């Protein structure tokens, strides 16, 4: 993946001042996404995955203090003037959020919102933009697109609204689409349809994509590479198949083990992870996962493990006592 890196996140830190002290939401993260590739970012609430995506999009809360570099197509987004950034967002860099009801304006029709985005970024007259809008709605699987243009968001179901949000995100042929929990608010049969739609459009447009999710199941079959985050840091990163075949980081293993499995017998006790993530305003000296880790010993509590290389190219993990390869519990 060395050739054609589209986005590279380099040593990014995001600090948020809070009444309880500084909250380090993102803690020295490095990531890269190649053109046309899909990266999954997985983690639980508060792990920093959403704050990281906001840092890439430069949509951080005003109080936030980011540092590091976010190189996109040769430019550092952290240092780009606001006007240039605005041209980039929506044009080359698009986003789909979790809740399509809050990302769509409730008092404007679907058509107004879609056509506005198209005309903001592309040199098209109204009729051309409208036709493009109709084509996009049809492409994302919305029946009777002509009529939908006249409707308001509340007249559509959650799944249809997410399709509209995807149509708007795709409207200017972005190079990178960031999908932040795109299906969490949707029912399971609709979730499958939306994930299929994203995958199909990605292939067709040769677009790069970042899927941010708490669900290991969502990234398993649908990404090239996965980064697992815990307490603001990337704790394991690997090509998707390598990650699931031989995970090295105990947190990744524990997260997968804690998922109820469809092929397990009813009433099988789940290997739960005890405790909960550390308070982000009170960072630990050692590994953030150590208090919950069954392998933790010695320096785990006094020293932070950095990302080191596994045998498989591209596989990195941050652990002093990694799971032995071959012995890793694969679910």
């Amino acid at each position, binding site marked *: 993946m060395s050739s054609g890196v589209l986005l590279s996140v380099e040593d990014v830190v995001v600090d948020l001042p809070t009444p309880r002290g500084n909250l380090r939401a993102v803690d020295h993260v490095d990531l890269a996404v190649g053109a046309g590739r899909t990266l999954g970012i997985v983690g639980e609430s508060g792990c920093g995955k959403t704050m990281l995506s906001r840092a890439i999009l430069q949509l951080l809360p005003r109080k936030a203090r980011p540092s590091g570099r976010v190189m996109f197509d040769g430019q550092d987004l952290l240092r780009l003037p606001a006007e240039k950034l605005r041209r980039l967002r929506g044009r080359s860099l698009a986003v789909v959020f979790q809740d399509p009801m809050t990302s769509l304006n409730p008092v404007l029709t679907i058509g107004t919102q879609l056509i506005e985005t198209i005309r903001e970024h592309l040199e098209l007259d109204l009729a051309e933009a409208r036709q493009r809008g109709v084509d996009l709605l049809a492409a994302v699987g919305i029946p009777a697109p002509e009529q939908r243009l006249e409707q308001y968001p509340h007249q559509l179901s959650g799944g249809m609204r997410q399709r509209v949000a995807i149509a708007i995100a795709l409207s200017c042929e972005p190079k990178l689409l960031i999908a932040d929990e795109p299906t969490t608010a949707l029912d399971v049969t609709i979730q499958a*349809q939306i994930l299929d739609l994203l995958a199909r459009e990605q292939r067709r447009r040769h677009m790069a994509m970042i899927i941010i999710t708490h*669900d290991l199941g969502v990234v*398993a079959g649908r990404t090239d590479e996965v980064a697992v985050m815990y307490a603001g840091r990337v704790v394991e990163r690997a090509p998707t*198949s390598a990650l699931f075949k031989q995970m090295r980081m105990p947190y990744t293993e524990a997260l997968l083990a804690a998922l109820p499995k*469809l092929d397990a017998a009813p009433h099988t006790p789940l290997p739960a992870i*005890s405790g909960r993530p550390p308070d982000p305003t009170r960072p630990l000296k050692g590994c953030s996962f150590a208090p919950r880790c069954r392998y933790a010993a010695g320096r785990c509590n006094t020293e932070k493990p950095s990302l080191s290389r596994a045998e498989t190219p591209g596989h990195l993990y941050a652990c002093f006592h990694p799971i032995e390869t071959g012995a890793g519990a694969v679910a």
Partner: protein
Amino acid sequence: MMLQAAPDPLLRVENLVVEYAVGGKTVHAVSDVSIEIARGETLGLVGESGCGKSTLGRAVLQLRPAVSGKVLFDGHDLTTMQGEALRRMRRRVQLIFQDPIASLNPRRRIGDIVAEPLVISGVKDPGRRSQLVHDVLSAVGLDPALVIGRLPHEFSGGQCQRICIARALVLNPDFVICDEPVSALDVSIRAQILNLLEEMKARYGLTLLFIAHDLAVVKAVSDRVAVMYLGRLCEVGPSEQLFARPAHPYTALLIDAIPVPDPDIRPAETVPVGEPPSPIAPPSGCRFRTRCPRADARCANEVPELRAVAPGQFAACHHPLV
């Protein structure tokens, strides 16, 4: 069709119909549902948003009036009970909700929140109440001395759900309805709460109705599973059997749609089966027919009844898969 779970079930719902009016229209939330739950059993109830699963749970407790049908709890029909008699019955049935933080009064201390059901049910001796609160908090894995004086906002979502479970169990109920009890929780916390529910079931001898949209979660805790779609039951059967050999095309669709955490299982491109119709105007005949690959003319004209497709397994389908 009676779905006989046991000769003497704890709960027996017969031909239950629940409807409500929205803007002059009628929402057919629960349409002619019959189901039984045996003593000591966990029945999982799955379905997508708007399928009527939560309404069914609330109708069992008489928190939603039924249009028709019966809810027999331990042989007593709750739909005809009122006042003190109904209140006495309700003490034996408790409810745990999805959002544990919203289910706790933010201005009351944990000790008072958990003691409240005891106060309402007339346990007058404060010493006795505090003993019971102490016992149940320890049972759900919280340190009573540390938590009773604190307020809900001082706790995480997982801890708040433990407090909700303690409150539900303090009256030593027979039956607990869990409505999406873990869907607001993170994966690592979810497993803790599911294990806790299983432990509490054994310790307090509970019968559970476990309502959720996540099939894997439901399978993890349920002896039998019932699948609902647009207000009707599609399929009921023993968990293992139902997941191994679903008979109703909707059950099969739900199972196929689950993202599996294994990259070797490439997600099959789903058949574009559209979205559920509105429960205000459900389709004629089989309500699933507008999304069903097997539907034909009969499905539009004739409501399929639940029929046995295998021992203990029932499906409401004219063209079952097994």
